[in-house]
């Protein structure tokens, strides 16, 4: 969800206007993903580093997120979307917002349509550190730690490996996003800014992804001259 600030700047609007415009995109993309049968959708809403932004902008974001969550809760429930919030552990998150996060997760916990993970106050490294802590606390012998076991100690261990990451506005960085799960993810970097990103752009990204040959470190399954 990059480019809200630039979007506003280009229109000579305050940065907050860009964040407000992002709401439409969020809902549009959720609908589009659900319609094409995506089962796991994650949105990177706020990183642990975003706390470094000016206090007023952070405050504004918190209020905006709260309003968006409350406004769309019935829709998410009705659409059969299971919502959950990855991270969201910082005490700086207003208590009322944390409460709404909990409420929305409880409310939609039984939905089976699509799982929407909102990474809020998320950092990939922190998740890995958390998993390590949890492993040590459970007194797992060092020899028994495997990748699989390690993954079981990450927050939301049922999250599968990420297939595709879309990063808007032309930025080409990982920025500490779900580091463990993106190990073999495909990346797409559309130039469009997030407030302008719409369902057709999303479908285009999916299309790009489908044309890619995913090798997971192996060799391409079929090369020239191979009889099979």
């Amino acid at each position, binding site marked *: 969800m990059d480019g809200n600030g630039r979007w506003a700047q280009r229109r000579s609007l305050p940065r907050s206007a860009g964040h407000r415009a992002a709401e439409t995109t969020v809902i549009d993309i959720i609908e589009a993903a659900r319609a094409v049968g995506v089962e796991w959708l994650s949105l990177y809403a706020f990183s642990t580093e975003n706390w470094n932004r000016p206090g007023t902008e952070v405050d504004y974001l918190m209020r905006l997120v709260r309003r968006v969550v409350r406004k769309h809760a019935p829709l998410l429930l009705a659409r059969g979307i299971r919502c959950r919030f990855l991270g969201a552990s910082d005490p700086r998150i207003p208590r009322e917002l944390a409460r*709404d996060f909990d*409420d929305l997760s*409880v409310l939609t916990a039984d939905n089976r349509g699509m799982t929407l993970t909102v990474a809020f106050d998320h950092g990939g490294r922190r998740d890995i550190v958390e998993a390590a802590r949890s492993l040590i606390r459970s007194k797992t012998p060092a020899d028994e730690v495997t990748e699989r076991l390690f993954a079981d100690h990450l927050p939301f261990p049922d999250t599968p490996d990420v297939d595709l990451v879309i990063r808007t506005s032309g930025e080409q960085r990982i920025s500490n996003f779900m580091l463990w799960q993106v190990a073999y993810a495909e990346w797409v970097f559309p130039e469009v800014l997030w407030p302008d990103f719409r369902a057709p752009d999303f479908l285009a990204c999916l299309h790009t992804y489908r044309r890619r040959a995913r090798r997971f470190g192996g060799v391409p399954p079929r090369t020239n001259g191979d009889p099979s």
Partner: protein
Amino acid sequence: MTTGTTGPADATPLFGPESQFSAFFDDPRWALAMIRATVLEAAHPQIGAALADNSTFVAHPWRRLRNTFLSMRLMFGADPVAREREAARLNRLHARMSGSDSRGRAYDAMDRGTRAWVVATLFESAVTMCRLSGQPLDQDTMERMYAEYRTFLAALDGDAGALPEDLNDFWRYFDRVVETELENTEAARVILYRLFDHLPAPALFEGAPTLWAAGRAVAGPLLGAVTVASLPEPYRRRAGLPEMPGARTLMQGAYLAAGLARFLPEGWINAESIIEVLSLTPGSDDPRARTVTALRARMKQASALLRLLTPLSGDADLTPEPAPSAGTGSSRRSAEKFFRQVLDQTGDGHLDWPDLAAMARELATRLDLDEPEETRLYDAFAAWWRELQAVLDTDGDGRISAGEYATAVPTLAGPALIRVAEVLFEATDKDGSGTIDADEYRTLFRTAFHRDLTTTDGTYGKSAFVGDFLSFMSGRRTNTPYDPLLADA
């Protein structure tokens, strides 16, 4: 007043499943009638004073309801031995209640005239409930029911002399008491205006405080208005209760609607299972608990939705709420909360002897104690009370306020409290084996041994028991088996 001769022995066939009383047991109208009867009882100055001092119905109404219900069932049941035993227990319980009201008038829960009034309000409310719902009782049924209630009184008091023998005289007696003796007591006001507005959630609704509060905000004032409108006119006038336009219609509508439940298939409404389910805690090992847990999950979702749908009133809607207990879950409860939930059983904001007596009463009821164990338990609690008073009552007014408790940084675990724990252990250990086995444990806590309990070979030793009791009582630990016992509403 004539002296009644109806002894419990020759009137026994009046009781049992055929009795008029049993017919009302599962009647939803009975709930409304019971509230009305309780207000009429509380309006009697003696009973009102006793209730205000001793009763736990403000702080723990659901536990109180359950105990009353079980006791009534024994009293009106078919088994004469059980009835006699229950009557003896009730008499012992009430013998411990006496004192004086705020104006210095003495009350005594054993006073015969007062006890007759309790029975009279129950009978009159049952008759009125039928009248108000448009299905008045015929004369024969009324006579028979009156005989039942007189026998009930006789079972308690030895004879029913305090109630007129004849039904016609009863109405004169009733009207006279209403017109001359009833007052606008504190207890009656509490029931009418405070109880329903602050009714704590029963165990079942514990996880859904928002839902409970929302329902209560609607139902509380309605129940109050319905009850006020159903009280006898002379009392309403004397007590200065409001006459709200439409309240009478509302009241009759409520009774009528509750009366319509008779068209439901038989067995749909069963007071006993309703009360039992309400007081189930989800952690218990009752087979119904799983259904209840599922139900609670639904209710949690409903209240989550309710909260999310509540419109934001600007950004200033930040009511000071305790932080969500999920997450770090500190096992130490605040001194203030412990005072309110456990120590202040009567809910008057002070800790005094009736609070501790209520604890002893609850424990004795659970363990179904007879003499002399019951007295030993009460004595142990009384000794603890003296110890507490000596240490904590700094302003010397004979009771301990929440503030006095908080500033003293609870050092409650003195020798007298240890003695209470020991007496409780011995009372629980029915077979005197020196350990508490699974059955004995279940009698006290209504649940099986806790998993991480420090049990050795399936029993609970004395030192572990005493230790757990002390750490609960000094507010050091929460989530003990004692929580549902003494802290639940």
